[in-house]
């Protein structure tokens, strides 16, 4: 006779493995005094151009590096290498997002103590990266004016899980009749209080203010570590 089925309590976080790796990464980053920013956006929003400009401008005073996630190509890493910062490509194959373990293995051989800023560019995708902690200090979500103002309402989860929003390609805002106010309100609706920057990586407009946030946060991180 077969015994009766019964229910047993388990309570286990499915992404625990990722979270454990992410937590240890975060501890390593903090101990080394490196400020880690991850970038998420939809494909084509200008993440790579934005990152290239970020690296180029920061490089004059800080030691910067980047990890770039991409499904198939190494084009982004080649583009970013023009900034002369150390760049490593993580080719995810068919995977639509980065996971903490990929970041961990990509960092093998890197001396984090030699860095001030590390950028992690996620795969272009506004859905899947939301669930995975990468050990970053700051998650930055990027939308371009050409995508329209309603992106935050369509993808509330990724906006809600991010710390800072950046609206890019503002040099094209007039041509596509982009409403800054609508976009700003939509971002605030899904993530009240989130800082939002408007900028153009192409013209440089607004870059300084956004870089100011990063350098302030780096100083705070180091101050907290020193206490």
């Amino acid at each position: 006779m077969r015994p009766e089925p019964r229910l047993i309590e388990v309570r286990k976080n499915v992404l625990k493995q990722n979270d454990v790796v992410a937590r240890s990464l975060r501890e390593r980053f903090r101990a080394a005094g490196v400020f880690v920013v991850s970038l998420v956006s939809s494909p084509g929003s200008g993440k790579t151009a934005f990152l290239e400009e970020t690296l180029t401008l920061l490089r004059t005073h800080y030691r910067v590096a980047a990890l770039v996630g991409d499904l198939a190509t190494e084009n982004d890493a080649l583009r970013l290498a023009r900034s002369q910062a150390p760049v490593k490509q993580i080719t995810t194959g068919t995977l639509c997002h980065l996971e903490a373990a990929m970041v961990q293995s990509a960092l093998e051989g890197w001396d984090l103590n030699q860095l001030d800023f590390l950028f992690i560019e996620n795969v272009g995708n506004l859905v899947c990266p939301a669930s995975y902690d990468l050990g970053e200090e700051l998650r930055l979500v990027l939308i371009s004016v050409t995508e329209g103002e309603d992106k935050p309402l369509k993808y509330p989860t990724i906006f809600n899980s991010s710390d800072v929003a950046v609206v890019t390609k503002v040099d094209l805002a007039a041509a596509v009749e982009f409403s800054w106010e609508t976009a700003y309100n939509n971002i605030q609706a899904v993530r009240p209080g989130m800082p939002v920057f408007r900028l153009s990586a192409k013209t440089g407009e607004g870059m300084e203010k956004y870089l100011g946030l990063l350098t302030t946060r780096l100083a705070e991180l180091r101050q907290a570590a020193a206490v």
Partner: protein
Amino acid sequence: MHELSIAMSIVELAEEEAARRGVQVNAVHLKLGTLSGVAKEALLSCYEMACENTRLQGSRLLVEDVSIVIFCPRCQAQRPLSSVQLFCCSECGTPASEVVQGKEIEVVALEIQECAPNLV
């Protein structure tokens, strides 16, 4: 589409538990938050795939949706969220970004059957 890798993690987790206890799993009970970033329908179809050729083959995934609850800084109380597009207090309308519930991807229980001794 990261639901397949999530489904595989669920199967792996349940298999470990089943092996440890020497039982067979009929069903996995999962709590899934609205803000988890996981699509339920996609997860359910991936689950079947992930179970193939494992101890979990033929088992069911039972998903309990977990709605979002935020903490209202003005009311100093937890409140349900009426819309994922508007993070504010359902009582007083104050914007609220502190999520206290709704991000879960959690296996909460397993429906099991003891293996018959001659099958162990």
